[in-house]
């Protein structure tokens, strides 16, 4: 039974990101994995090996698309070619929902290929929510937006990040991909209580959760996705699950990628929290 109207996929359980170093292991050993998340842009191509591999994965696994360059928060109009290719991929994967970031990254036709933070203003919320609606209407699939890690705050901001997230998703009427590692990273970089963030998110809109590791520097934390999940992030995850119930969860590991088994075992740690959420529902 769906936990909420944006989360019709409570049976998805715990997935991991599909990454090239694991292709051979997955295709030859066919490990049991609840689902894979793919980076959409890696497969928005004409053909060749990447799509051949994706087709083999699709034959055996559930796949959800995660984008990194839609840039809902960029002022300029959506890139039509991007949308056209994304729709082709959506048709191929039959992704039940599609995620991308609450950020910007391009201006005047130039792309930074980064997830740049939004200024938390009402103007930005209006622009962003309008574009989320456009994408959803064009792709005809539920759109879910992810909070990003950030290292800068803007003078012009008129609200907190979680208030901005709420403003955007209410205006766009879309779901949330709650990245609890990103919340932790930003909380340390900007001196706020990460639990306040998790407690302020509208639970009825959370469709998916991300967990990941990060790197600590002397004066800030970088969201590097190259380490196991640390305990404070697991605690945030536990609180999120307590609030939103059993929700599709995914571990991101993008750099210094260890063996498939190590990544999968790290992801499966989430099950102990999901199990208690299921118990709580049953009681």
């Amino acid at each position, binding site marked *: 039974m769906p936990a909420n109207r944006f989360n019709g996929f409570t049976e998805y359980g715990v997935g991991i990101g599909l990454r090239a170093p694991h292709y051979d292991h997955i295709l030859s050993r066919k490990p049991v994995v609840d689902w894979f998340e793919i980076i959409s*842009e890696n497969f*928005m*191509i*004409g*053909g*060749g*090996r*990447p*799509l*051949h591999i994706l087709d083999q994965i699709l034959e055996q696994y559930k796949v959800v698309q995660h984008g990194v*360059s*839609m840039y809902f928060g*960029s*002022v300029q109009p959506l*890139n039509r070619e*991007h949308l056209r290719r994304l729709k082709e991929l959506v048709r191929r994967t039959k992704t039940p929902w599609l995620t991308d970031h609450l950020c*910007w990254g*391009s*201006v*005047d*036709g*130039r*792309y*930074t*290929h*980064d997830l*740049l933070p939004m*200024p938390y*203003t009402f*103007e*930005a919320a209006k*622009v962003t929510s309008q574009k989320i609606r456009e994408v959803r209407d064009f792709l005809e699939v539920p759109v879910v937006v992810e909070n990003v890690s950030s*290292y*800068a*705050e*803007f*003078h*012009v901001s008129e609200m907190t990040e979680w208030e901005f997230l709420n403003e955007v998703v209410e205006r766009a009427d879309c779901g949330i991909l709650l990245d609890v590692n990103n919340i932790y990273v930003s909380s340390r*970089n*900007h*001196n706020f209580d990460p639990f306040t963030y998790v407690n302020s998110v509208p639970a009825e809109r959370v469709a998916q959760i991300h967990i990941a590791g990060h790197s600590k520097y002397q*004066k*800030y934390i*970088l969201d590097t996705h190259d380490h196991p999940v640390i305990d404070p992030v697991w605690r945030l995850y536990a609180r999120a699950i307590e609030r939103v119930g059993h929700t599709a969860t995914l571990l991101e590991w993008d750099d210094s990628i260890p063996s498939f088994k190590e990544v999968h075992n790290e992801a499966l740690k989430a099950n102990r929290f999901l199990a208690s959420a299921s118990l709580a529902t049953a009681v």
Partner: protein
Amino acid sequence: MSLLSLQRRMARAVMTPLTPSEHMRRVAPNGRPMRAVAAQFIKPNDRLTSFERLEIYNKQYWFRVLSNLMEDFPGLRAVVGDHRFEAMAKAYLTDCPSQSFSQRDLGSRLEGWLRRHPSRGGSRQALAVDMARLEWADIEAFDGKAEPSLLPEDIPQTSGRHLRLRLQPYVQLLDLRYPVDDLLLEVKDDGDSDFASNAFNERRKRKRVLAVARLKPSPVFLAVHRVDYSVYFRRIDREAFGMLSAIHQGKSLSQAIEFGFRRSAMPPAERPSSVEQWFRIFATLGWFCRPESDSPKS
């Protein structure tokens, strides 16, 4: 400050090249102190100034795009050397920042840019341009679109002087001044080694430099294509190259054959059998798409 104004200011700062010691520049391209630029829109906190917070994004941008270009153009790096490659990559990315949602396209304008900036290729400019073309063709051939192939048995049924064939979108045709295909294979073979040590890297670097120094101009006509999802470089005759290029431009079969043999030294008596052999090989490799008029109606 409007959203657009903020995004323009931040993007301009983030895409400004780093200093040689990999820090954000003290002076913005417009001559203003970067500290003032950053302080205008970014808040400081108790650990970082506005400048330092902006610098995190500035560094991340350059580390990302430079490593991407290095990964995509190992052959060009071998041709011009590590130091010159880095300087060239920074200048190229400053002049030609990404205009695509995909980082895969980052090097799409490198060949044209190198031609407009001949000093960037160093003493081996022509070689550098050839290598940039080959490595971009490699990327295009790797993930380009494939359409249903024209099979060898289709040819007799569809033959005719006015037949227009189409090349597979992933097949890339290159006329090169240097045999850079051999060099690139050597460089890639080197790069596949897992063993890494300073001594080994030095030996590897010397080997590349020697390989480049040995390379003499020698025209090569190349088709970059793929078989079973792997990219291959296939050298072809000048006449076959001319013919395939004409087919790619939409010429009819007879026009393409005529074009291929312009100024050819091949004796006329040998030409029909050569054409037949080429077509058989190219069709077997799946380079031709089924003609549109032959495609089954849906």
